[in-house]
């Protein structure tokens, strides 16, 4: 799979985790793409931490209203029934467990559910923005990312980079499989049949629990 195929493959699978009525916050990058793959029969409410629920598609060039942006600063639209609020309300919603699912990328995730996605020591530190609140507050935290970083494992026994949050990740979805974190272990629930179990374990530093995983749906 090429880069775009991987991205769409992961996004398609993430989108299947949503239930009707879910409040969902999508991080920047790959997670943002998930919005394009939501099954037609599922209606979710996209939250954006800068102050809205009901994020709609990006507007046409001519319809841009610079007073409506998402948390990445891009012009967006609001769907019917959506509404705006201030940052205090927004993080009350996030920290208070009113966001059902948040989807984020990560540099590292470990088998205790800790994740590290905001500092690479020695590089510029952009800041954590709302990520720490999101992964701490959301009911379900899904990490959507490529399985490795140029062949180097990102799914570890223990994160080595500074943490974004401790013990918060529930699910990891990569181009190789779907992994659930449960009681300090990473369970491979689904796998991409393009890879063998050995290859998937090879690309993962933590030891995977592989107990009859099912094949991932390859249709994008």
């Amino acid at each position, binding site marked *: 799979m090429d880069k775009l195929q991987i991205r769409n493959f992961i996004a398609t699978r993430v989108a299947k985790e949503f239930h009707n009525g879910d409040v969902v916050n999508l991080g920047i990058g790959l997670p943002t793409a998930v919005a394009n793959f939501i099954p037609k029969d599922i209606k979710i409410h996209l939250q954006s931490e800068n*102050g809205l629920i009901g994020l709609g598609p990006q507007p046409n060039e001519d319809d841009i209203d610079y007073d409506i942006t998402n948390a990445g600063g891009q012009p967006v639209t609001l769907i019917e029934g959506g509404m705006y609020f201030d940052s205090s309300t927004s993080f009350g919603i996030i920290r208070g467990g009113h966001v059902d699912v948040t989807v984020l990328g990560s540099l590292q995730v470990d088998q205790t559910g800790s994740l590290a996605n905001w500092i690479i020591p020695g590089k510029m530190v952009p800041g954590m923005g709302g990520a720490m609140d999101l992964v701490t507050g959301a009911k379900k935290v899904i990490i959507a990312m490529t399985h490795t970083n140029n062949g180097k494992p990102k799914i570890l026994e223990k994160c080595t980079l500074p*943490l974004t949050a401790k013990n918060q990740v529930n699910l990891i979805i990569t181009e190789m499989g779907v992994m659930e974190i449960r009681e300090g272990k990473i369970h491979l629930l689904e796998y991409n049949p393009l890879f063998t179990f050995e290859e998937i374990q090879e690309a993962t530093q933590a030891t995977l629990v592989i107990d009859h995983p099912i094949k991932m749906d390859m249709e994008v």
Partner: protein
Amino acid sequence: MKEIIKIDDLKFHVFDGMSIMVGGFMAVGTPEFLIDELVQLGVKNLTIICNDAGFVDRGVGKLIVNGQVHKLIASHIGLNPEAGRLMSEGLMECELIPQGTLIERIRCGGSGLGGFLTPTGIGTIVEEGKKIIQSEGKDYILELPLRADLALIEGTTVDQFGNVLYTKTTRNFNPVMATATDKVIVGARKMIESIDPDCVMTPHIFVDYMIMGGQ
């Protein structure tokens, strides 16, 4: 009735070394023309409290690029590479705070609370140097209130009494910052006679001055 002042009068309310809260999220909701005036005035050694560092040519980013900011308190600075450079070269102090904690600290400062317990940041470097309090079997960080000398707010619509409305996602940090500073100046786009009393977002009692001219 709040006093309406001219943009030229902003100079009477700013001074070197002061702390300023500036509304806006990636410059959306930032009173851009008040920032331009601050750049003109050249006030120095500012402590700026804002969600982010803006862009090199938008929002508080312009103050940073112009070397007027001694310390920045924000949740991220990723879209302003100049902020990153000044920070890593030690030319600007930078305190990074989780966004939800930042807004809540400002709310605390404005509402007379001495602090709050948040789970955000537990087990990360954010907890370093802070008091950890256990409650009902869970660890929380005790975070303290944040206040400043001045708030610069972007009001979309104000009325003659000084009540303020914000449109769409320009609201963000603005209404909470308006409660947490000694002085509040609203840069407004439009004035109407009166705002529906059910829909006022910042009550006039928080506003000290209004400057018309926002875009």
